[in-house]
């Protein structure tokens, strides 16, 4: 098998844009766990990193909104946001179109994904890369799941996508890492920004850590919106990762609500070697 790393992290733009405004006793362990994740990712020596993201209208609009899309370009660009605002420099990021298309051709036998021969990354991908591949020296392959506008990708299809992605990874010779990135409960980009439903988050993370497919797919959009806000739709990225590592537990390395970052900040990794 060629999946060599699987993990999940938050991507809220406040993590870099407003980094210093969080209390040090929350920020420091959060960033320390990003560092641990980076070390484990590097130790896995991946040839490519697939980022399963929930973008925020960087590439996809309602003129053509795919349930999922995968990048297939030789390079990508980001961030689309004002670099001074996000505090991440705009740059090109290396890709691998040939590998992308090999993965896509396998996945599309089961999952009707769109493919994109150009891609602009927003904070949803740039914040994770800022911490995990700070030298931008690993080929990335961006993936988006529609978490941004209803009708959203159904949860069971997000799971099926993760499973199909895993099958495709196992089918290529390259060493593949997957990082999913999304928020749990949050009310971003509203006056409620900073509101976090910690009890809901911890209950969700418990199901996620146990990789309880039935429990994860039992959520419904209306309840998630009511309990977990607009940002709750991003649980699709968690569920896709769970599908990709079906049957394995997921270690929650860090969780803490950090209101000025507007999300319950999360770092999770999967031990792919455990029996």
């Amino acid at each position, binding site marked *: 098998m060629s999946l060599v790393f699987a993990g999940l992290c938050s991507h809220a*733009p*406040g993590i870099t*844009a*407003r980094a210093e405004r969080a209390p040090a006793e929350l920020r420091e362990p959060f960033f320390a766990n990003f560092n641990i994740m980076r070390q484990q990712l590097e130790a896995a020596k991946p040839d490519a990193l697939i980022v399963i993201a929930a973008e*925020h*209208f*960087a*590439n996809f*609009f*309602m*003129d053509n909104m795919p349930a999922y899309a995968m990048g297939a370009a030789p390079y990508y660009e980001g961030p*689309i*946001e*004002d670099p001074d*605002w996000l505090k991440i420099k705009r740059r090109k990021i290396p890709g691998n179109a040939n590998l992308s298309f090999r993965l896509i051709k396998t996945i599309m036998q089961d999952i009707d994904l769109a493919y994109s021969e150009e891609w*602009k990354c*927003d904070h949803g991908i740039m914040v994770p890369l800022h911490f995990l591949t700070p030298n931008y020296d690993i080929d990335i392959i961006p993936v988006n799941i529609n978490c*941004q*506008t*209803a009708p959203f990708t159904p949860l069971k299809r997000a799971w099926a996508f993760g499973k199909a992605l895993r099958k495709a990874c196992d089918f290529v010779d390259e060493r593949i890492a997957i990082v999913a990135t999304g928020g749990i409960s949050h*009310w*971003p*980009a*509203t*006056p*409620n*920004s*900073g*509101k*976090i439903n910690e009890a809901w988050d911890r209950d969700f993370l418990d199901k996620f850590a146990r990789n309880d497919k039935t429990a994860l797919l039992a959520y419904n959009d209306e309840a998630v*919106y009511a309990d977990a806000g*607009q940002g709750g739709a991003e649980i699709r990225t968690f569920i896709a990762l769970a599908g990709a590592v079906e049957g394995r537990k997921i270690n929650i390395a860090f969780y803490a609500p950090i*209101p*000025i970052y*507007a999300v319950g900040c999360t770092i999770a990794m999967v031990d792919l070697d455990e029996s």
Partner: protein
Amino acid sequence: MSLYYVQKFIYNINRDTKLQTGFAANADMILANYDLTDEEACALREADIGLLYVMGVNGQLLMHYAAYRGLAWDDYIQAMKDGLAKYGEVRAGSYVTIDGGAGGAV
């Protein structure tokens, strides 16, 4: 009713630095490419973030547009609150304010 095109303009300009240059040079010429009411074109030109929020622009589009138009984080949050006070409740979409903005960090 052209919220779709308000959002499409924001989508396009948020991601395209060449369009940003053109908009800085001649906003009306760029806006003329979109099917907008006068109120919508004015809100976009004047960066009336509060009104755009109340119109129902998806928050993930508006947050980036506010940053591109130069609003610092706290000012952007305040602009939405001011918009609610001035124009009333959010008219469309799912980026409504709940509980009067309770739980917010700013």
